[in-house]
């Protein structure tokens, strides 16, 4: 079956430092990867949508300079939170799908970021 592995599950970083999270798609081709953040007391908010052979599209309030994303092949994507501050804490999720096959978006288990 289709699975998305996301790691690390939890991470703590000092204010002003950076952290990277990764997603691995298993059992399908991740032609499209979406990164979301759930901040405390909020719902999931799209950060950016990455489609193979297309430019990564960032949502309003999110930039490549702050959240650089790599999607080098059909099974892997990573996102870095640069210069993290308190407002960046929350649960980060990657969701992947094969646009040419099943429509369902499969999510990883998330990376919970705590900023000290």
């Amino acid at each position, binding site marked *: 079956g289709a699975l998305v592995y996301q790691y690390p599950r939890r991470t703590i970083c000092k204010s002003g430092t950076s952290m990277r999270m990764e997603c691995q798609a298993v059992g399908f081709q991740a032609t499209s990867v979406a990164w*979301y953040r759930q901040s405390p007391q909020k*719902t*999931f908010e*799209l950060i950016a949508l990455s489609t193979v052979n297309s430019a990564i599209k960032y*949502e309003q309030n999110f930039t490549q300079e702050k959240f650089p994303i790599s999607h080098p092949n059909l099974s892997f994507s990573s996102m870095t939170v640069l210069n993290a501050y308190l407002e960046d804490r929350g649960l980060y999720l990657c969701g992947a799908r094969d646009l040419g096959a099943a*429509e*369902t978006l499969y999510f990883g288990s*998330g990376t919970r970021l705590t900023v000290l």
Partner: protein
Amino acid sequence: GDQVEQSPSALSLHEGTGSALRCNFTTTMRAVQWFRKNSRGSLINLFYLASGTKENGRLKSAFDSKERYSTLHIRDAQLEDSGTYFCAAEDGSSGNKLIFGIGTLLSVKP
């Protein structure tokens, strides 16, 4: 305003009873997914619908794009059904991005 309005925000059920969650959309959506967030924080896929209804065990979901809503019905609720349920609608005009509802915290009690 929010494009996906999910209700209720919290729901308490006794074991064996049922209820429905609902998401209203302010625009025409191409598809909807329903998820349950488990105790470890993972989003578990429940349904993907581009139209009509689907049923899986004690869960049933419906999506009406024209009327701009989707529902998730739970019958014969069990303790393990407790958790937070999210609907997420796909806005086809925005590159297949999913817009999430605020979530419904379901508590099933003995």
